[in-house]
């Protein structure tokens, strides 16, 4: 399997739906036909944010970064290839560079800024990333962390193959994959022991 060029990215069920809705191929830039603007409210990290008038085809990535100044999600390729822009919509990892803001609708968007607790405490994935000193340049890591978060929400004890598969859509130019893999395992263990502790109470 080399090198797995991910044509169009893997489509989550939700993205499939969106893709149908807007008849977008998810295989490249959002081609714009209409020039209209629309008013969009976005549910981000538990708050409803008004984006004002915005081109409905604006990718969620640029709405987050330019309008809401939530710059954790990063621009890498713009065509669903690198995963630097990964955020969660209703708990599922999506490539926000190829996800029109108008398609989010009522969906709950979670960005990396929304992971830590209200007291600022890092969650399990964030802590594992710090403890294992995963990052080199760090540019891909917000996307990696969001992909890992989505994986662990769906699968509390992923094996090596599950991790490889779930993380294959996220590129790290610096080559930190070995540490990312370890960090996902560490985060899974942290979440499990936290759950066990909760259950014991």
């Amino acid at each position, binding site marked *: 399997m080399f090198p797995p060029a991910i044509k169009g990215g893997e489509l989550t069920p939700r993205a499939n739906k969106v893709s149908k809705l807007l008849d977008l191929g998810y295989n490249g830039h959002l081609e714009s036909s209409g020039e209209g603007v629309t008013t969009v409210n976005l549910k981000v990290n538990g708050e409803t944010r008004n984006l004002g008038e915005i081109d409905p085809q604006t990718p969620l990535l640029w709405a987050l970064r330019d309008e809401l100044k939530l710059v954790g999600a990063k621009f890498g390729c713009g065509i669903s290839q690198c995963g630097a822009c990964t955020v969660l919509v209703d708990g599922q990892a999506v490539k926000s560079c190829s996800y029109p803001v108008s398609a989010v609708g009522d969906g709950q968007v979670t960005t990396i800024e929304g992971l830590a607790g209200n007291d600022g405490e890092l969650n399990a994935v964030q802590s594992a990333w710090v403890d294992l000193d995963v990052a080199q340049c760090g540019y891909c890591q917000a996307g990696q962390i969001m992909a890992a978060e989505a994986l662990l929400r769906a699968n509390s004890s992923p094996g090596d193959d599950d991790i490889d598969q779930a993380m294959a859509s996220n590129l790290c*130019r610096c080559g930190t994959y070995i540490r990312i893999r370890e960090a996902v395992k560490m985060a899974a263990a942290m979440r499990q022991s936290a759950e066990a502790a909760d259950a014991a109470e």
Partner: protein
Amino acid sequence: MSTLNYADIGDVVPRVTGERAALDETVDLRIGKLDRRQFLKLTGLVGGGLMLSFSTPRALANAAALQPNGYIKIDATGIVLYAKNPEIGQGVKTSLPMIVAEELDAAWEDVEVVQSAIDQGLYGAQFAGGSMSIPMNWDALRRSGAAARAMLVEAAAKHWGVEADSLSTKDSHVVHAASGRKLKYTELATQAAAMPVPDPRSLTLKKRDQFRLLGKRITGVDNRALVRGEPLFGIDQTLPGMKYAVYQKCPAIGGKVRSANLEEIKGMPGVNDAFILDGNGNAMELLPGVAIIADNTFAAIKAKRALKVEWDESDASKDSWSHAKAEAERLTNESGPAVVDTGDVDAAFASSGKRTSGFYTYHFVSHATLEPQNCTAWFKDGALDLWAPTQTPGQGIGSAAKVVGISPSKVTLHQLRCGGGFGRRLYNDFTTEAAAIAKRAGVPIKLQWTREDDMAYDLYRAGGFHQMDGSVDDDGKITGWRDRFITFTNDGRRPVSGGGLGAGVFPAGLVDNVRVEQTALPWKNRCAAWRAPGSNVFGFVVQGFLDELAHLAGRDPLEVLLEVLGEPRQMGRRGMHTGRAAGVVRLAAKQAGWGRELPHGHGLGVAFYYSHAGHIAEVAEVSVDDDKRVKVHKVTVAADVGPIVNLSGAENQMQGSVVDGLSTMMGLSVTFENGRVEQSNFDQYPMLRMPSTPDVAVHFVDSDYPPTGLGEPALPPLAPAVCNAIFAACGHRIRTLPISEEGFSLA
């Protein structure tokens, strides 16, 4: 030869890399023409020289704070250490302050690290390149920490009325053991600030066994902010009233704007302005193009897609990989000017028992930093501020000042975390563009390159061609070695950065009869330093061909490599030490279990390369199936780079170099036809992903040599180690990178 001016191409990294300095002293260059037969022999190239500038730390005036130099500020509220160089993922924002903290005896938990301003008067050269941050700053940083520590001790001695030598320091405290008293550095700061700054040369530094911090695993100082998505990177900057800019250049480099549908673009929703910039004649600074300014990035990108430009391509690139390859094949049939010529290769070939030859090729590649180039710029009241992810901030200031027409003293560059560097951000074309656009815009702008811009206007790692010939005698000893190298030149005078062989190339000085010839083909697309410039491809060629000669002789490649390295000795002033080289080769071989019985279809390959003052050997274990699918099971790395500063960061660099090396050798290439780059995004530039990542075992030699950098030297041995392992596994000799060109893929 070309009206594209590459004036600055040699003035960025090469100054600071020993390899390039050596090259400048020795190179004769023959220029091959693609269209007609004409060779031009050039001599007397300007010597670069190694410019290591150490500024004497000067005390900064601040009565309440202890600030004996630019690296340290201690006051009642805490200890701040300043990180002077750009952070590009090589870890210097953590490792450089660690060196200060060690001699300061500050507890790492007490330290806050802050990125310093650009002040090369205070800090000396501030850049990230050539794996130079550690070796260039090691001594100055240690003395800076020791100076502050001495002042704190003096202050405590005065305070308690005891002798300074009765005091010790530990964990940000001065301790008087005899009385059991201790004081925090933060409590002593004001008094210490009044003490004279000691002469840095007078200070006693720690012995290695006294280190408390260095050599430990320390997590990066920005990690907590990173995992929260805080705005650390160049691309994350926002200013009040900021607009978003894009810049379209000619797809064939060197083309000029004849006309563009500017009115139509200006009428698009969200677009504020669109205008033509002529370029400043320097291809490394400002190429001609069309700038668009918009309310947000998406509007700018959409407008760029709607832009129609008529280009004047009369002086534009016609670069063609297929033509270059054909010309290189022709040129290697004949002799070229030599950069190395020791002994008598022809006589050796004539008298030796066995000969072999091979034509080695590697493609151009892109840096592909994951953060596309960008820069935020604000020109206001005759002064310019830049927020830039650059590896060479000083040069960025100079180019921006030039293009805006102000004094460099009117330019402030705020250095920001870089989303990868790999050499790309040594060149400040993107910051220069931002400066020029900001001057015209009159409001703060963020210039954003798309990924397509980034791939089309990179400064590529040049491809190259080597006709290799070698001989062994009846005892299996290597007797002759010839490398006919065809490289590229941008300026018609020198090989492109990273595309020149110098006198120190392997195996010069190690084999009796060596001849290395060098010829350059003219090339307009800009080429420049790419992680471990030169070494990243020469390692593949020379360590692969050495393996070929070992097999020709019917001998164990490990044994031949060690035989070639020979007796322990220093090769020239900046060359390798053969004893250290043999040490890492033996260590890697031992740890990888060289010589053990392997499963069917598996092979082990070994390679060594010396670059950026690092001695590194790697052993790869691979298996190859009948469909030429390669699985890299494990890579064992042994490195001798002196004492390790941050074990976690050092190991991360080694792991990353292996992954980068593997990614690049497996499937990455940038090709050119009609002057244009044929790849435009990651779907055509398939970098390695997690499922293909091998196990990597890292071993550091515990040595007392001065510490050297780790951003680069672990990359060059990877490709030859894997290719030699593939040969061992299946008998196919790889002579082309990426190996996908020879039909191989990753399992």
